[in-house]
C-alpha cells in the first residue's frame, strides 16, 4: 500500500489526486443530500396520501410508488438525462440540454430523489398503519378533525416508528448516488476509477473509496441514533431503559 500518489499533481485540472478525491466526496454528499430532501418531502406526502380513505388521492400515490419502485435506478437515470429533455415542450427541452447549469448533476439529483421517494413513501405508510386504529378512533372521539389527527397523532408517532428503516434508506441513498457516474457525475466511485486509470494504484484508491463510504455510513448511523434517542417516546418497547 503506497498512498504517496495522492500528493502528486493530477493528470489534468491543476490540483493533486487528493483534490480529486475530495471533489469526489463533495459530489457524493451533494447529490445524496439534495436527493434526500426531494425523497423525504415527496415520499412523506405520498406515504400520507396512501393511508387516506379518499380513493382519488390514494390511487395516484400507489401508481407512483409501483412505477418508480419497479424500474431500475440506472434506467431512471438515463431517462432523466437522455429522454426527459426530448419529450418536454421544445423550449424547455432545449434549455435543459443547453442552458441548464450542470445537467448531469441535476438529472442525477432528480432521478435519485424521485426513485427514493417511492421507498420513503412505503416506510411512512407502514409507520402510520402500524399505529393501532383505536388511537385514531379515540382522537376522533375527542373531537379532533382528520387533519388534526394526522398532525398531532399519526405523523409524530409514525415518523418515530419508522426512524430505523428510514435510516437504512438514508444510507442507501449515499450508496445509490454512485449510479450517477453512468451519466457523468464525477462522484467518489467515478473519481476512484479515473484515478486508478491514471496512476495504476487501483488497490489503494479503491480501498480509500471503500473507507470513505464506510465512514459516511458510520456518520449517518451515529447521527440517526442521536435523533432516535432525542425523539423517543417513553414507555415504548425498544426505546431503551
Amino acid at each position, binding site marked *: 500500500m503506497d498512498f504517496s500518489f495522492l500528493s502528486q499533481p493530477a493528470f489534468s485540472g491543476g490540483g493533486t489526486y487528493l483534490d480529486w478525491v475530495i471533489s469526489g466526496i463533495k459530489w457524493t454528499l451533494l447529490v445524496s443530500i439534495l436527493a434526500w430532501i426531494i425523497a423525504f418531502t415527496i415520499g412523506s406526502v405520498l406515504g400520507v396520501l396512501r393511508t387516506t380513505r379518499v380513493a382519488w388521492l390514494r390511487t395516484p400515490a400507489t401508481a407512483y410508488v409501483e412505477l418508480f419502485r419497479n424500474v*431500475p435506478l440506472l434506467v431512471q437515470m*438515463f431517462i432523466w438525462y*437522455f429522454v426527459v429533455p*426530448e*419529450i418536454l415542450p421544445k423550449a424547455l427541452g432545449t434549455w435543459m440540454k443547453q442552458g441548464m447549469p450542470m445537467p448531469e448533476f441535476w438529472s442525477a439529483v432528480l432521478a435519485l430523489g424521485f426513485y427514493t421517494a417511492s421507498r420513503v413513501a412505503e416506510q411512512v405508510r407502514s409507520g402510520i398503519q402500524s399505529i393501532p386504529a383505536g388511537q385514531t378512533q379515540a382522537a376522533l372521539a375527542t373531537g379532533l378533525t382528520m387533519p388534526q389527527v394526522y398532525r398531532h397523532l399519526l405523523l409524530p408517532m409514525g415518523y418515530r416508528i419508522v426512524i430505523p428503516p428510514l435510516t437504512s434508506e438514508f444510507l442507501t441513498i449515499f*450508496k445509490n448516488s*454512485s449510479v450517477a457516474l453512468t451519466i457523468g457525475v464525477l462522484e467518489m466511485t467515478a473519481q476512484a476509477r479515473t484515478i*486508478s486509470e491514471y496512476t495504476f494504484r487501483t488497490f489503494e484508491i479503491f480501498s480509500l473509496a*471503500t473507507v470513505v463510504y464506510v465512514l459516511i455510513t458510520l456518520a449517518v448511523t451515529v447521527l440517526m441514533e442521536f435523533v432516535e434517542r432525542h425523539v423517543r417516546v417513553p414507555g415504548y418497547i425498544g426505546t431503551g431503559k
Partner: protein
Amino acid sequence: MFTGFDVDVIQRALPYLWQGMLFSLGLTLLAMVGGIILGTVLALMRLSSYKVLTLPAGGYVNLLRSTPLILVIFWFYFLVPIAVKQITGNPYASGIGPFYSALIAFTLFEAAYYCEIIRAGIQSVPSGQVNAAYALGLNYWQAMIRVVLPQAFRNMVPILLTQGIILFQDTSLVYVVGLTDFMGAASKVAQRDGRLVEMYLFAALVYFIFCYFASYFVKHLHTRITPPR
C-alpha cells in the same frame, strides 16, 4: 410530444434485446442461488457462539452493506484477474472474463444481504423448537438442517424472492463494466441508431412489467404459504 416515436427500431432490435434479457436472468438466477447458499453459511456463523466465527462474518456483512454495488463490481473486475494469476501461478493468465467476475461480485455482494434476511428468519423460529430438537437427542447440524432451517426458509421465501427482484434490477449495473445485459443491449442499440427515447422508455417498460408481476406473484405466494398460527 411523441412525434417521430419509432416503434420499428424496437422491433428490429428485439432478438438482440432478448439475448440481453437471457443474460440478465441467468446472472440473477446464478447470483441468487450462490448468494442464498453463502448467505446461509454467513448467517449460521453470525448466530454461532464462537467469536472466531461471529466477528469475521459480522465484519464482512457490515463492510459489504456499506459499500455501493458499483464499487464492488469495480473491485472484483480488478481483483479477480489478479486472483486467477495467483491461483494458477501463471502471470500471463488472461483471467476468467467479465461475466464471471460480475457473477462473483454479485454473489458475494448479495450474500451479505441474504445473510441478514436468513439470520432474521432463523431467529423467528421459536426457541422451543431448538430445545425440543436437542431434547430428542439431535446434534447441532441435525437440529439446524432438519428442524430450524426448513421452518425458517418457509417463512422467508417471499422476502428472499423480493430480494431476488431487487437483484434483477441491480444486474442492470453490469453496464459499468461493458457487459451486454438487457439494459446494456438497449443502450448499445440506442447509441448505434441514435434512438435514445424509444430504447430507454422501452427498457423501462419491460423492467416495470417484469418486476410488477413478479412482486404481485410474491405477494400472492406470501398469503398462500404463510402457515396458520
